[in-house]
């Protein structure tokens, strides 16, 4: 074995003596392959290029848009995933916690692949591997074995259990199954197995996040209520793919000198250091801290529509105050910091005040390039609200706002935000719609910029609207998740991505010599 822990640098391969190797980027554009494609066409039974062009044009029309919006049964390119993804995501933030999905095994393979592709990090989770016999007899036997095997092999401190739709349809009762597993000695009596029913045919990944978080808090805080509070505040970021946000929040809280617990801190789970040694568990929220979170002064949430059940539980069962903020952009960060200051009685740190000034300065410097630009955007409800707020304060005009996993309260809040700003007057919230609807919107009422996840690249290709990648998943650009989008630093990061996409696009548009390069400016 090559010892990759020594520091020897391998010799470069070099290009001498060999014609360049062509991979898919170049190979298939050579004459050889272009001829091959042409020859293959005769067997394809394809429509004529004229017909294809005609229909392609038609898909851009108002007529097509109307037919597209008349859909009642069909969903195309939705901007939402299913519940267990969110359940696994939140579970990964807790100390030595193994996420476990009870049901068919293919689901876990998908969740792991999806999260891994976004973060380029390992994601470890297990399944009950249920098959036909479990469909008939129920999944108890699979769960007993699965818990015992996972506990013995991977030695977690906690297993966070959720379900797939198979287990839900056959009606497996997780609570009873866990009790049986413990009674029969498959796992120790005192071993925590919080659980959540997470059927994929209800809600979306954010619903699963909520259900699992509530499950974990319910299990770990049982009998932990003390006489007095612990002087800490809890913070929850929701299904926020930017691990940079957790780190940024912690920095802000440390500057304030506020004692806190992050529920759940999965920043290292999705960004662990490479030391040459694989560490399976990287969740940073300890079980002890979580147990004690019931005794906090209050809990802050940054994604109201991701966490309704958890918030209801905390308010009612813990008797604890909950606060909702979305500290994205300048004004929303101001509000959050002022509230933190008011609630804790601590002044806003000077460092943050200076950062505010710098962020506002940055916005002012580039504002001319975004003023009045029409924007299409999509994503989860809270994510979209944060973006709308930020865009409005920069003078951009959120125009098409698509939220597949919508709800009425969110839509009302989004509309209010738009109505109250002069820049929001042309904005429409399209709840329950998908990215194929958005395609029609972007063809019939074009915009200047699209903000979305990697799936948005198909809209970029079709409509030539430049894409700023903000959201989940981002598969085709690297390292975006490491940055913060929260607070003043986050505002600068998001602004940087947006402004420089606009400027890149201007260069792309003006790059043809003697034709468009009149405006290929050195200074912008």
């Amino acid at each position, binding site marked *: 074995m090559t010892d990759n822990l020594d520091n020897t640098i391998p010799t470069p391969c070099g290009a001498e003596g060999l014609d360049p190797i062509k991979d898919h980027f170049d190979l298939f554009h050579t004459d050889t392959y272009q001829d091959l494609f042409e020859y293959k066409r005769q067997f394809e039974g394809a429509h004529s290029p004229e017909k*294809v062009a005609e229909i392609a044009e038609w898909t851009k029309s108002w007529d097509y848009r109307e037919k597209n919006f008349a859909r009642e*049964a*069909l969903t195309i390119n939705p901007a*939402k995933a299913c519940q267990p993804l969110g359940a696994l995501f939140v579970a990964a933030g807790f100390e030595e916690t193994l996420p476990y999905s009870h049901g068919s095994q293919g689901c876990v393979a998908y969740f792991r692949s999806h999260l891994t592709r976004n973060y380029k990090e390992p994601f470890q989770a297990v399944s009950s591997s249920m098959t036909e016999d479990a469909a008939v007899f129920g999944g108890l036997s699979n769960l007993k074995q699965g818990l015992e095997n*996972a506990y013995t092999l991977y030695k977690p401190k906690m297993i966070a259990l959720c379900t797939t739709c198979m287990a839900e349809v056959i009606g497996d009762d997780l609570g009873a199954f866990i009790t049986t597993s413990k009674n029969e000695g498959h796992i120790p009596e005192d071993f925590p197995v919080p659980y959540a029913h997470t059927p994929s045919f209800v809600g979306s990944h954010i619903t699963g996040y909520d259900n699992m978080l509530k499950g974990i808090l319910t299990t770990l805080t049982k009998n932990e209520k003390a006489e007095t509070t612990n002087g800490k505040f809890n913070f929850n970021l929701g299904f926020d793919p930017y691990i940079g946000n957790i780190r940024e929040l912690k920095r802000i809280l440390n500057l304030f000198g506020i004692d806190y617990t992050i529920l759940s801190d999965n920043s290292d789970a999705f960004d662990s250091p490479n030391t040459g040694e694989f560490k399976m568990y990287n969740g940073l929220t300890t079980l002890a801290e979580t147990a004690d979170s019931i005794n906090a002064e209050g809990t802050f949430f940054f994604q109201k529509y991701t966490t309704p059940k958890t918030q209801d539980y905390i308010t009612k069962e813990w008797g604890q105050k909950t606060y909702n903020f979305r500290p994205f952009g300048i004004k929303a960060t101001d509000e959050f910091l002022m509230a933190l200051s008011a609630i804790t009685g601590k002044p806003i740190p000077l460092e943050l005040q200076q950062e505010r000034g710098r962020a506002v300065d940055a916005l002012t410097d580039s504002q001319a390039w975004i003023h009045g630009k029409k924007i299409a955007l999509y994503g989860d409800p809270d994510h979209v609200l944060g973006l709308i707020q930020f865009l409005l304060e920069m003078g951009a005009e959120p125009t098409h706002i698509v939220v597949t996993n919508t709800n009425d309260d969110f839509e009302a809040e989004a509309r209010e935000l738009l109505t109250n700003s002069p820049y929001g007057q042309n904005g429409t919230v399209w709840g329950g719609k998908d990215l194929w609807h958005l395609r029609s919107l972007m063809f019939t009422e074009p915009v200047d910029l699209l903000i979305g996840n990697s799936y948005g690249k198909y809209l970029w290709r079709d409509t030539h609207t430049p894409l700023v990648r903000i959201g989940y998943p981002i598969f085709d650009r690297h390292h975006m998740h490491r940055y913060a989008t929260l607070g003043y630093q986050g505002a600068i990061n998001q602004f940087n991505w947006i402004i420089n996409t606009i400027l890149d696009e201007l260069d792309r548009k003006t790059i043809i010599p003697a034709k468009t390069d009149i405006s290929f400016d050195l200074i912008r």
Partner: protein
Amino acid sequence: MATLEDKKALIQEVLDAYPEKAAKLRSKHLDVKEEGASDCGVKSNKKSVPGVMTTRGCAYAGAKGVVWGPVKDMIHLSHGPVGCGYYSWSGRRNYYIGTTGVDTFGTMQFTSDFQERDIVFGGDKKLDKLIDELEILFPLSQGTTIESECPVGLIGDDIEAVARKKAKEYGKPVVPVRCEGFRGVSQSLGHHIANDTVRDWVLPKADEYRKLPEGYEPGPYDVNIIGDYNIGGDAWPSRLLLEEIGLRVICQFSGDGTFNEVVMTPLAKLNLIHCYRSMNYICRFMEEKYGIGWLEYNFFGPTQIAKSLRKIAAQFDETIQAKAEEVIAKYQPRMDAIVEKYRPRLEGKKVMMMVGGLRPRHVVPAFKDLGMDVIGTGYEFGHGDDYKRTAEYVDDGTIIYDDVSGYEFEEFAKQLKPDLIASGIKEKYVFQKMALPFRQMHSWDYSGPYHGYDGFEVFARDMDLAINNPTWSLIKAPWA
């Protein structure tokens, strides 16, 4: 880790970490290839052990993701809740040529997005209406396949009835695929189920559906490429070689394939099958029904490519055989140059593989062409016949692991200390954190093609850049 006994002891040591029952089950799936053995000594195609972290997927993944998904001008509906289609959306890199959303649909996600009411009241009505909507919005689609997700099979929907009705209504194929994720033990049953739908729903009507190319006359050299999914464009260099030796490829099923190509298949003289695991069923059927023979080939690395080209040519006359020799000779100098360049950089490097379909065996000789040795291999969802075939490919003493668990794979890697691990996305970053070079062998790590002579060049380059990557030298901090 030299002797057979050492390796068997390692397997035992790994098994000791399991509870008794699981250890017993897993012990049947781990072994060492012994001298003279006609198989690899492992059991396969059995249920995964719950809770151990299998890498396997499900029947839906096999049917939609593998077999049907790449048929580019049909709409493949993920029928049920939203997740399955979402996670598998554009994940496999089945390259194709076409105007997406107009005459091809490969990188789109179509779903019936089941809600609670669909579970309670059934989804057939929704499905019926949904196909109407498809027809309105995508008039150029050549048909629809309905890939059932778990709930559909549990609530008693009759998707076959809907399929029959809608096919009649629109005069286009509508193929119901009962690939609910709980069926079978892995992706593998999904392949089989999808193959069976071709047998039952497509081929019986092939004559009716088929649009023959202008002036088409069946010829003695007509062949189908079966089971090449065109990942990173793999099927194209393969097609190129077959055409260069004088054969006429009338169908690619399914990478960059069309529905018409699927119904062209019965006209061929020979089925050339690359991924035996996922498509042998339909080849066997066509042999029985139409008398079309089938032949497995391996287009990974110059040694196997030459061997396969000769094997294929031997099925035809001397013209083809002569051309095959010409083609092999034509590419040889370039292959020699590639090997000359990369072999010294890779000689003696040890590889551990774990993939699906055919690659755990077929890629072994391509590594050998570069002087690299595969010291461990295994399948996610192989069967006994795969392991039999594997025995011919691997060296004695190779560790074989079937449906390897995360724990086993990590422990084997720690002990066997390979220079490269070639497996999937879920494994990649585990091993990279262990400072082990890694290449994804499902997606070609976003590179490719790897098939054919053109593909081998890319393969060689990629293995070199994974192993001889300067960032590995940075992992250890200078003060540590």
